[in-house]
């Protein structure tokens, strides 16, 4: 087994405080002046490619995120604009937080048969595990809106109903 001894003690140079402190100051000062320089350059429209610091100026500038990121839910639509969901309750079943409420109803088209009369997601419970998306056999629920803004002043505002979830999807083009 490879074992590495990492123990060390301070050298005399380090023991006298001041040199190490200056070294540390040099490091932070380097950050300070580099960023200061870049910011000033930006004021004059220069060095646009360099970033002064790493901050993303949300809300004006958003951090790019991976397409896999699970964001706010949406329900997809059929070509007639109705929800693709058939109220099979897979997502409701698999949801560890029990944040999805579905009530099914009889659809006029016997090929489809079933549709959600009610479909609520309580974001106040949702843990964004993405299980609902994985469990959906109809590609009806997705978490790819890229929307991360869903704070609310009240608990009721956290419950998103069928219409709200649908409104985040567009009707797919005719094929």
């Amino acid at each position, binding site marked *: 087994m490879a074992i590495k001894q990492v123990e060390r003690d301070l050298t005399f140079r380090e023991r006298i405080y001041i040199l190490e402190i200056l070294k540390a100051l040099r490091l932070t000062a380097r950050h300070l002046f580099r960023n200061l320089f870049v910011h000033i350059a930006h004021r004059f429209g220069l060095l646009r490619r360099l970033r002064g610091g790493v901050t993303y100026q949300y809300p004006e500038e958003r951090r790019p995120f991976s397409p896999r990121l699970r964001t706010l839910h949406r329900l997809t639509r059929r070509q007639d604009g109705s929800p693709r969901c*058939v*109220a*099979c*309750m*897979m997502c409701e*079943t698999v949801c560890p937080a029990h944040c999805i*409420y579905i*009530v*099914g*109803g*009889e659809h006029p088209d*016997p*090929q*489809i*048969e*079933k549709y959600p009369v009610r479909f609520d997601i309580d974001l106040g419970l949702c843990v964004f595990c993405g299980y609902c998306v994985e469990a959906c*056999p*109809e590609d009806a629920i997705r978490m790819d809106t890229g929307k991360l803004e869903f704070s609310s002043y009240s608990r009721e505002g956290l419950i998103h109903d069928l219409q709200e979830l649908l409104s985040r999807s567009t009707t797919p083009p005719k094929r």
Partner: protein
Amino acid sequence: MPSLEINGQSIEVETGSNVLQAAEQLDIHVPRYCYHPGLSVAGSCRMCLVEIEKMPKLAISCHIQAQDGMKVSTESEKVKQARKSMLEFLLVNHPLDCPVCDQSGECDLQNYYMEVGQYDSRFLENKIKRRKAVPIGPHVILDQERCILCTRCTRFCNEISQSNELGVFNRGNRSVIDLAPAKTLDNPYSGNVIDICPVGALTEREFRFQCRVWYLSTQESICNGCSRGCNISIHYNTSLSYKAGGKRVQRLKPRLNPHVNRWWMCDEGRFGYEFIDHNRIESPQLRAVQGKLQTSDWEQVLQEVSTGLKTTLENFGPEGIGVIASPQLSNEELYLIRKIFAESMGVQEIGTRNPWEKEGFEDDFLIRGDKNPNSRGAEELGLNSDVKAILEKAASGKIKILYIFQHNFESPEAQEMLGQAGYVIFQGTNWNKTVEVSNAVLPGATYAEKDGTFTNFEGRLQRFQQALLPLSESKSDIEILSTLARKLGYPVTYLDAEEIFREWWGRTYQELEEFGELLNGQKR
């Protein structure tokens, strides 16, 4: 008595039984679709293939009679391969319906796919389309695409209900199950075809889309629809009560009892569970002086009732009290009523039978005319005084305080008598005509909400178990009666129905036989 060997285990079976049944006795499950113990053998699904030594081909175990010296294998590679292929064949035209199919979760296609299938699909053609979601009767919806043509339903209609509504039409891969011309599936046992359908081809209209079956919990119970006492399971869902408006009991399913109902039950009983969650009395009520019923609390109502009973007993003796128990109550409750009112108070006449109740529909199979589950039990307990006489006494003022359980006295005559009665206490589950004229209302629990036993018309004592908690503020009748008795000063300390049962019957519920016991005329 042939003796045969299945998967290396030997067993002796009765003459005439088939290999599948023999395997079942050894707890070896052989997949099957068309075979049903209560129906004739069709041998059409070919899932129950087994390998029998010295037979050239695989044999369908439901059709082969067990014979002496047979060596059967249900798990050999050949068998597995055959079942897999059979399943693949059955699924060729099966639609992608699991998301909308009510059967998924209890579907044998799904089960056997995971057990014996587990292959990747190879099907590269279009599926054949057939009719979907066709209502073929008041309770049943047919989906021809999902059907695997096992013909259990047609055999049921031919052999059990003998009404011949269903049949197989067309040939080859066009063959479908359909209604016979000019018929609808409306026999009184039509619900059973839903139970026996191994796939989602026949589904229940009432249950459709109400709840996914994997949310359901089950509890063993006894149907209280008539005095047959069919064994049933209550399928209920309490975790997702926001669905279907708080409906807890989702459906009833028959449970095998070879002595009573075998595998079947009637539609009347199957769909007669609505009262459990509907029109219930949810809290105790008291009638204000010359006024309407008002919601009250248990403490207050019981106080008033016990004071009333006590003062009547003191001033007028037991003759001042009338009790009308109900054949809807369990043996334990009736026993407790007898104990409190007859034995402790000395009330002489306790009636149960509603004299205005007419005999209902009756047939020679399951349905009985007496729509009460425990008339026989009440009789055996000796609570069979004349109700009409009690009511008359109440109307004439001889009986000051009248304690009615559960009964709905709708007839004008009874209404009139009740109107003249002094003080009426009602203990029951649902709002009805009697409640309207009562002074104190104690909400009791339905049979799904309590433990107990019923005695059916032939004297078979059968146990039912609690599935649900009493709705809202209602309480089990035993609890109400015990509390009342304690308030009256009688030492009644039963905690649950089982204690009463032990006192009455002398045995625990566990010791009661699985399919119930006949009374054999012993009186207790």
